[in-house]
């Protein structure tokens, strides 16, 4: 029952928080619960993180006739993501402390957290899918109800794209189970068993394509990314932190957890295609980010670029690459989550997001400038901070396979400087423009500084000493790596 509490506690708390009479009470309860879940996840999983003991921490119920079994487990790749989700939920709730929103706002965050925990923990494809779709409903309401001006259109587009993806995922999963039954005569949805029997033949390609499409919409991969900028820009700050922080990782997690182990040869065959798409993601995200005039939309496109690095890493199918990819998932959560928090704080004060709306903030709000510069550098991939470790490992992994893709991926690092620094300079260094609101912006208060210091310490720690995390991922990664 230990693992079940990770997703059951926030789900139960969601109902309680929603029903509480006063808004302040429900806000406090939400923060308490999310902090509790974070502490619990750290306490529960930390001792196991050290040794091989991870897979022993498993729970599974009786297998029903359909072969569906309630089966939770955690391994090297899922563990950091659980921590990340718990951390970001707590931080985003703390960050939107001053927002005047109904109880449902806090309840949907807890619902989102429980669904994400479910996705990262479940080893059974059916429950994986249930949690996968359950994560979309709260996010739809977060974007739709409490977003900024264009929220309705963004919420609808978000819903349309993600449901298209999840439908393709449903078909793929069901077909995979039937195919597996055809091959072995056993009905099972458990990832462990599915990996044992190789899936071959033409049908496997169709199943692989359906699953890949389902995951690709969520990452998002280049052609299917159109929902991301609108969803991120219109979502409230805390919403985009959760969306960028952990929701985008569901797709990559799906690749790592389902496609790579169950279809090793097909993944190897798809390497140039999907690796190439990863590189396209990197460059396309960077180019679009360069041309944005809205700060939040710029950060949204950088997510596309960062996840491109994850994709390149994962689809290099080398131990270094996959370790880099999964580490970059974590880093992206921290740095882009941090950036969204900062932009949220800016929006909270001035209700404006344009690059030209601010100016010379470095002199007015030096603390804010320091945090923004630090987290932006981590997002650009400055060595010594966490972004660099993920990108370097992913590209080094890909370099072992195809030097061209690695070189093009590295080009993304140059473009990162091209979108990062001008944005920083426009907001903090350039003199205030005509309609600038810089004079209205006060510096960060204690609460905001505490939140950002947490992120700062993590970013610096992973940057300077990533070894414990990499050793944590080692068993799960070497299982997937093919070279």
């Amino acid at each position, binding site marked *: 029952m230990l693992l079940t509490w990770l997703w059951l506690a926030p789900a139960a708390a969601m109902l309680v928080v929603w029903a509480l009479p006063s808004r302040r009470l429900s806000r406090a309860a939400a923060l308490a619960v999310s902090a509790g879940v974070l502490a619990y996840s750290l306490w529960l999983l930390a001792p196991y993180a050290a040794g091989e003991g991870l897979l022993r921490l498993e729970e599974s119920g009786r297998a029903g006739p359909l072969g569906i079994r309630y089966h939770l487990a955690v391994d090297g790749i899922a563990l950091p993501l659980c921590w990340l989700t718990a951390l970001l939920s707590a931080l985003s709730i703390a960050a939107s402390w001053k927002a005047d929103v109904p109880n449902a706002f806090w309840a949907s965050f807890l619902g989102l957290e429980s669904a994400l925990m479910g996705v990262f923990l479940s080893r059974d494809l059916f429950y994986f899918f249930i949690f996968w779709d359950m994560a979309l409903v709260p996010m739809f309401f977060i974007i739709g109800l409490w977003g900024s001006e264009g929220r309705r259109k963004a919420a609808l*587009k978000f819903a*349309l794209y993600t449901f298209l993806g999840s439908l393709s995922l449903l078909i793929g999963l069901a077909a995979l189970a039937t195919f597996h039954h055809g091959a072995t005569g056993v009905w099972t949805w458990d990832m462990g068993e599915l990996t044992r029997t190789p899936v071959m033949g033409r049908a496997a390609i169709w199943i692989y394509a359906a699953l890949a499409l389902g995951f690709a919409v969520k990452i998002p991969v280049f052609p299917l990314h*159109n929902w991301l*900028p609108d969803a991120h820009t219109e979502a409230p700050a805390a919403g985009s932190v959760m969306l960028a922080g952990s929701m985008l990782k569901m797709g990559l997690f799906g690749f790592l957890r389902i496609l790579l182990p169950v279809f090793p040869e097909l993944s190897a065959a798809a390497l140039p295609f999907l690796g190439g798409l990863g590189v396209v993601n990197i460059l*396309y995200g960077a*180019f*679009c980010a*360069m*041309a*944005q005039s809205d700060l939040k939309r710029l950060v949204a*496109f950088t997510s596309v670029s960062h996840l491109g690095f994850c994709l390149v890493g994962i689809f290099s199918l*080398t*131990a*270094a690459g996959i*370790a*880099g990819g999964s580490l970059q998932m974590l880093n992206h959560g921290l740095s882009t989550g941090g950036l969204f928090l900062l932009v949220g704080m800016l929006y909270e004060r001035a209700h404006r997001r344009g690059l030209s709306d601010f100016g*010379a903030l*470095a002199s007015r709000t030096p603390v804010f400038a320091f945090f923004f510069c630090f987290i932006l*550098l981590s997002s650009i991939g*400055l*060595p*010594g901070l966490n972004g*660099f*470790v993920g990108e*370097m*490992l992913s*590209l*080094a*992994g890909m*370099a*072992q396979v195809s*030097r061209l893709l*690695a*070189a093009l991926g*590295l*080009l993304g*690092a*140059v473009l990162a*400087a*091209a979108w990062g*620094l*001008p944005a920083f*300079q426009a907001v*903090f*260094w*350039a*003199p205030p423009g005509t309609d600038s609101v810089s004079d209205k912006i006060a510096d960060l208060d204690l609460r905001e500084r505490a939140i950002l210091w947490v992120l700062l310490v993590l970013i610096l720690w992973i940057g*300077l*000493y*990533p*070894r414990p995390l*990499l*050793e944590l991922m*080692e068993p799960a*990664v*070497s299982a997937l*790596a093919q070279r």
Partner: protein
Amino acid sequence: MMNACAVGTLFFAPVSALLLGFFVFRPYWPRKTHWPMLASCAAVTVASIHLAVQIHDGRIAGGSWELTAYRWACAGSWRVDFGVLVDGLSISVLGMVSLVSTLIHVYAAGYMAEDPSFCRFFLYFHFFFLSMVGLLVSNNYLQMYVFWEGVGLASYLLIGFWYEKEAARAAAWKAFLTNRIGDVAFMLAVFLLLRGLGTARFSEVFQRLPELSSSTLTAAAFLLFCGAAAKSAQFPLHVWLPDAMEGPTPVSALMHAATMVTAGVFLLARSMPILEEVPGVLAAAALIGLLTSLGAAAIGAMKRDLKRVLAYSTISQLGLMVLAIGTGNLFGAVFQLITHGFFKALLFLCAGSVIYSMHDSLSGATTVTVDDAGGLSKQLPVTSGAFLIAALALSGIPPLAGFFSKDAILEGVFATGSKALSVLALLAAAGSSFYIFRLLFLTFLGDRPEQRGPRAHAHEPGFRMKVPVLALAVFSAAAGSLGEPIAKVLGKEAPHLSLVVSAAGFAFAGLGILAAYWATMLRPGFDWAWRRAQPELERILDDDFGWQSFTAALARGVLGFAKLLAGPWERKTWDAFTEALADTFVGLGEGLSFFSRGALNDYLWWMILGAAALASTVVLCF
């Protein structure tokens, strides 16, 4: 044991100074932040000198001392450990860097005294110093790369220190972007090494070089050279250095003259074993070094802004060092690197003193052009004296340091035996003495009719700025004698001054000085006159033979492509696609609603027709 704690201070002194400065001095004594920084610089200098003496006297076995601190990351088959490597090469350069940094820290304390964000300046300044020290003593490529970009970041922050100025912001971003291009090449080289050997430690890499395939080796060597070329402002990627002069003068002195820009040459010197495996890259390095040196000398001779001339002079001297590396003369390059560190820093400090002293009279302009200044030697005797010593050293007049290091380089070039290379090298030497003495004459000696600026009533800068200038003057003069110790520390044979080469060098230097004297003092209006006579020649030279405008056009093109991609492509095609998809289904619905318009008879008609259709298909088909 002593060595361990000496190496320890190399890292802990700057780190503790920074932490102290950030958490303690910034909130409480912002005007005093330079004290911890000075202390740490002094500590590092003492430690490096102690280590240098240890290595020089052979008390450290094998001339190099390596310690692996901790395992940074492990992924798949290879491990990356962070550690410290102190050998002849690193300690000699570190000695110069720490010494020059200490002096410039003192100078900066005086120069930046009235600046409002004094504390922020020193935090950035010392962060640079930490990164530079880290870069010099790291024992593997990855750790070197971490500090390599740290130095890049420090230069970005310091160039853009006065961020109110538009030019400073643009220069900072340009510097960081160009450096990033070089860093990416460096990183790709590291990937190739990791892929081939699974490790990036210098000692291991150099031992297992034969394991690498020749194509990987050439690619790695070439990419390393690109990385170094960006940092040391060689021809294709030098565009950022002249603009970097927007930063405060101590920054230009320390980073863009003495230490940071030499990091590229240091990287080439460090990876000499790899370069020696690939003769093609060495030849390319020599060619590019020479080309840069000559081009920069020509442009430097024409510039009017004091600091721009010195910037191009740095590019030219770096070209010479790369030429030395290209001819396989490691000792020449390192010796020139060290001596150049001293006299170029001195030149910049003198320029700084000139700017500082004329500051109030020039309404806040942060730089002085040759036209504003003139005949300053009377008001600034000390500065002009020091400038003269540094100029003599730069052009390579015998007793001073420049002569010995430039001679070492010329020895190497003559040793290659190619006549054309030697002549061009001599020409470069002549050029360097021409532009420095032109600057000397125009700024300090004769006053000229076309002088636009106010008759300068500068006053000698304060004590804190004069001491470093004098100290550096002494070093510029005495550094020549460091030849043997450096050679011994590097493990190379002692330099021998062949009469022919030194005479030719001295002759060309003298020629340059005379030409400068002829062009400025004897015909006072000439410098001004030819500019109006050939405006297009001035424009070409001003534009780095058209290279500056080309890179600007390239940047605009990339930004335009991005705007095209993000604007019409993202908005129109994708949004339109999703809307169209939705509209088609709603349209289908409208069409179908034609059949259900409420008439009972129609309903019944469609029912009966449907039943008949079903019946006919079932009956006929089965």
